[in-house]
């Protein structure tokens, strides 16, 4: 019985651990087979509460959207410095609108992902924050610029907290999000952000789906 096997078995409750390690010992399994068997069992034991396809889909969705908001954070910070430097009023207004949109989307991702996949809050948080953390490790710029990678993180974490506490202000949030996404920007920055606005509309869609699902769950329980 190797140390790694015993360490792996610590993921099981104490009584189960004793019986299962004993069975492995008695069966004389090879080290590799013992590890595979035990890993499969731990996976099966851990899986049932998290087995809903919707939960996994929500995490995948959050993981796909979060790189978009990381990219948008960086693009916004770069554009902001240019607009401020050029003294363009319209540009700054559009940047503020896009920043608000970004934060609303981040808030929505946080709320939606955690509301839908409440059992897997930690995994959801990892899925949302992983792209920014990954970029932070790759990026070696000045500290302040690197901080822009996490522009979306505060509203996302706040959103996750709202989702976890089930404090939904769905109408207010949804209307704000739709307005921000649908208001056309000033001509100075218009064309490039049309698709961006449309893609961020996925966040309210995700949000509505999660709320409907949570609402349905409570209605049935």
């Amino acid at each position, binding site marked *: 019985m190797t140390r790694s096997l015993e360490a792996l078995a610590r993921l099981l409750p104490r009584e189960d651990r004793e*019986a*299962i390690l004993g069975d492995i010992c008695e069966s004389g399994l090879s080290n590799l087979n013992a590890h595979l068997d035990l890993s499969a069992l731990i996976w099966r034991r851990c899986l049932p509460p998290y087995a809903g396809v919707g939960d996994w889909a929500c995490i995948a969705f959050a993981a796909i959207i979060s790189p978009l908001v990381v990219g948008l954070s960086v693009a916004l910070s770069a554009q902001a410095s240019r607009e401020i430097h050029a003294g363009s009023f319209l540009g700054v207004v559009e940047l503020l609108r896009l920043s608000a949109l970004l934060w609303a989307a981040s808030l929505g991702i946080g709320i939606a992902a955690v509301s839908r996949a409440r059992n897997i809050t930690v995994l959801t948080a990892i899925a949302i924050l992983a792209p920014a953390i990954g970029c932070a490790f790759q990026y070696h710029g000045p500290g302040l610029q690197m901080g822009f990678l996490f522009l979306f993180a505060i509203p996302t974490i706040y959103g996750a907290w709202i989702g976890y506490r089930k404090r939904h202000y769905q109408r207010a949030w949804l209307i704000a999000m739709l307005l921000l996404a649908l208001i056309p920007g000033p001509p100075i920055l218009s064309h490039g952000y049309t698709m961006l606005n449309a893609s961020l509309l996925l966040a309210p869609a995700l949000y509505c789906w999660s709320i409907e699902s949570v609402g349905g769950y409570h209605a049935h329980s």
Partner: protein
Amino acid sequence: MAIGEFEYLLLAIASSLQNEAYGASIRRRLLEDGQARSIGAIHTGLDRLEAKGLIVTRMGEPTAERGGRARRMVKVTVAGARAAADFYKMISVASRDVQWAEISR
């Protein structure tokens, strides 16, 4: 209560092993019958049967061959015996006019 094929196998083997039914002995019997299953699969199946109230388990005494670890002893309940009997009857009735050996030749 409806059970599946693997659950039936576990109930049948646990019933035949009587006081010696536990994970490793069930696996050994399955291997002898040409049904190789992992220890994890057996324990998952036992968990499911216990949740359905078809078996009860208790921790036995530790033994030296298990490295001083206890066994999870399995006992089939009356509901478990009934579910296994129903499954067997269903299979027997459904197969009464079928000659699998001839068909699969």
